């Protein structure tokens, strides 16, 4: 065998070896997530019907190969609508979580580094925000944003970020307190670096592991949060095929056409199962590497 080919194979097999050594939950989760991401990215291009295209078939005619999740009362193909909704769910979940992670990390790291009254005030407010059950806090913000913003994806993304902000801040602050007494932070402070640069160059790199797991965890619950808001009528508006909205729209049909509710429900639940497995595996991997680094 040609040396180059052999090299390539051994490169591949070492990747395969790493993959084999990851926890089983991580692998199963990654496969489920990969299917979801591919379906979300490509779905709108190969979905048999449009996202709100009526007359795709006989309304409420049940499950068939042509319509795996059936048709709603307007004759819209539910499977196509689910495919058109995938990227909405994933993009909103990721960008909302990202917003909360970035702002929350800045607030938390600064708060931990500066300490004093600033820290006290910030943490009391964060604690108070966490004390309002997150779904209720989200509904409050959406309700108070007024009717012009209602139903806008930007508002939902902002709400997800706002809900996660204090939670990230708390994690980041704890991580900051963990490293703040180390020599390199002291040296940076004595060098006369301003707080912002200490936070960015000394604290942030050391908090990355914790924040990454937190990010995975929150990004995993964000689809449920967004779908719950949509289900309750506080999220996006019909006919946007976000899955929570879709399930709420089809719920009155559960007696005559249960597949129009259970189909999207199965897809949403499988996404969350994938996310949960993957996050659990990731936490285990990062926990393990963090421990080996310490030794």
């Amino acid at each position, binding site marked *: 065998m040609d040396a180059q080919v052999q090299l390539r194979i051994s490169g591949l097999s070492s990747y395969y070896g790493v993959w084999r050594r990851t926890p089983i939950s991580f692998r199963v989760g990654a496969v489920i997530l990969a299917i979801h991401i591919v379906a979300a990215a490509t779905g709108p291009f190969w979905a048999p019907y449009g996202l709100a295209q009526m007359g795709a078939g006989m309304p409420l005619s049940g499950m068939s190969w042509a319509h795996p999740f059936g048709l709603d009362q307007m004759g819209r193909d539910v499977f196509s609508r689910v495919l058109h909704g995938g990227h909405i769910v994933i993009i909103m979940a990721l960008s909302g979580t990202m917003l909360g992670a970035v702002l929350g990390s800045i607030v938390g790291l600064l708060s931990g580094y500066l300490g004093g009254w600033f820290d006290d005030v910030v943490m009391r407010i964060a604690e108070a*925000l966490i004390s309002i059950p997150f779904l209720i806090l989200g*509904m*409050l913000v959406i309700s108070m944003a007024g009717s012009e913003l209602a139903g806008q994806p930007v508002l939902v993304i902002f709400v997800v970020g706002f809900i996660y902000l204090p939670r990230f801040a708390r994690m980041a602050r704890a991580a900051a307190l963990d490293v703040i007494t180390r020599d390199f932070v002291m040296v940076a402070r004595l060098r006369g670096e301003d707080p912002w640069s200490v936070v960015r160059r000394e604290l942030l790199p050391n908090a990355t592991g914790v924040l990454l797991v937190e990010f995975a965890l929150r990004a995993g619950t964000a689809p449920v949060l967004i779908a719950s808001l949509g289900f309750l009528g506080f999220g996006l508006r019909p006919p946007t095929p976000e899955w929570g909205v879709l399930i709420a729209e089809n719920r009155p049909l559960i007696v005559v056409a249960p597949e129009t509710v259970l189909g999207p429900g199965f897809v949403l639940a499988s996404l969350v199962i994938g996310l949960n497995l993957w996050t659990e595996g990731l936490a285990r991997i990062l926990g393990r590497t963090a421990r080996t680094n310490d030794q």
Partner: protein
Amino acid sequence: MTALRLIAGRFGLAFVTLFIVSIIIFAMVEILPGDVASRILGQLATAENLEVLRAQLQLNDPAPKRYLNWLVGIFQGDLGNTLTNQRPVTEMLGPRLKNTAILSLVAFALYLPLALIPAAIQALNRDTVKDHALSILTLIILSTPDFLLGTILLFGFVVVIPILPAQSLVDHTSSFLEYARAIALPATTLALVMAFYAVRMLRDNLIEVLDAEYIRTAELNGLSRRSVLWRHALPNALIPTLNVTALNFSYLIGGVVIVEKVFSFPGFGRLLIDALLLRDIPLIEITILIAAAVYIAANLAADVISIVLNPRLRSS
């Protein structure tokens, strides 16, 4: 003494947090940029309507004064009238809170066996097919959003096996049986979510206890596997789970919002959603404050339990 001081500290912090929550709620509802009255009425409101609403909400007073009035009102039990039907807020809240309290109690009663039985089966059949099957079931139920779980239960017990009503509508004229039938599904949904949240921890605790020396002694004394489990292992495994149970209570206050909506149950959660959808300011403020207070109380209970159960703090 350390434990007592710690507990007193937790109580103090809880009150401070609740106080800050009240400021946040008030600020979000009444001081957010933009005019409150036009936000409630929307763009089509006439100047006249806006003026009437402003007068009713006393929006012409400065914000700190309105906040103080609101706080004083809470302590005096006078919460003003709702905007939508002009009835006293307290009168609206009473029956709704009662319904939700009953719902929560039933959910908790169902929660205990639903958590205990799978955990006991798993611990006794550790690493067997049964154990893994239940672990997968736990994962699936935990991954199913509660509105979906409720909808699936609704499908099962209303459509497939039609024994329960689709809408859990009850009022003060309902008989006990009607109440029981109305509450069955929402309570089961809540109980399932809470139970499977606790199952994994309970299983691990049980396994740990079953491996302990005193359990081996009991077994060697000839006690049956079952009596060892129920009489000796379970009480010891339950104690650490108390913490989870208290935290589950804090889930409940958010959970009822969804579950009451799914089953059209006339409780506190529905009132909260309706208030927010109709932008009924007095009702919004008090319902969210109550939700936060319950959440804070549940977390306080969890904290106190773990302090009391910590032997290092107890002995000193």
